[in-house]
C-alpha cells in the first residue's frame, strides 16, 4: 500500500518539477516548484520523517513560494518571458 502511495506522490513531485522547468510563465513555474515541495513533504510524512515534512511544508514550499511571488512582483512580473 505504501508503495503505491509513494509512487503516486513521486510521480506528482516529478510532474511538479517538470512543469517548473517547462512552463514559460515564471509564476506558474514557481508555483509548480512549490507544489513539488509540498508533495515531497507528503512523502516525508509517509516515510517516517514528520519533522522534515513540517520543515519542508512550512519553509521549503510555503514561505518559498511567498518570497518568489514577492520577487516576481519586484522584478516587473508579468514581463516578457525568456523564450
Amino acid at each position, binding site marked *: 500500500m*505504501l*508503495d*503505491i502511495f*509513494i*509512487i503516486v506522490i*513521486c510521480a506528482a*513531485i*516529478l510532474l511538479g*518539477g*517538470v512543469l*517548473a*522547468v517547462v512552463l514559460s510563465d*515564471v509564476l506558474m*513555474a*514557481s508555483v509548480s*516548484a512549490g507544489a*513539488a*515541495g509540498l508533495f*515531497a513533504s507528503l*512523502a*516525508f510524512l509517509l*516515510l*517516517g*520523517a*514528520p*519533522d*522534515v515534512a513540517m*520543515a*519542508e511544508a512550512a*519553509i*521549503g514550499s510555503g*514561505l*518559498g513560494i511567498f*518570497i*518568489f511571488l514577492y*520577487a*516576481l512582483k*519586484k*522584478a*516587473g512580473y508579468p*514581463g516578457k*518571458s*525568456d523564450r
Partner: protein
Amino acid sequence: MTALPVSTVLMVTGFGLVLLGYSAILIHRNILKMVIGFSLVDSGIAIIVVALGYVQGGTAPILDADTTAATVFVDPINAALAVTAIVIGFAVTAITLAYAIRLYRLHGTLNVDAFTESRE
C-alpha cells in the same frame, strides 16, 4: 506489488528533481527560472537525504507509548540533516532572489546573457 523498494523510488525522484533543477539552470536564460532551478535542486537533495535514511518498514524516530523493542525506526540523523539543509536552502534561495531583483533594477531585464560585464 512492485519490485522497487520505497526508498529507491524516492531516490529516483530526488535525483530526478536535481536533474530537472540543473536543466532549468542551464537552459533557461531568465534568472528567476534559474533560481527556481536551484530551489528544485534543494528540494531534490532533501528528498535524497530522507530517502537515504529510510529503513525498511521504519517509522518516525519518536518514542511513544506503542514503541516496542521490535519497532524499526528510520535514521534520525538523516532527518536532522534534511531539516538543516532545507533551512539553509531556503536562506540561500532568498538571497539569490534578492540579487535577481537587484539585477533587474539595475538592468531592467532578467536575461542572464545581459550580465556579462566582467569576463576573461
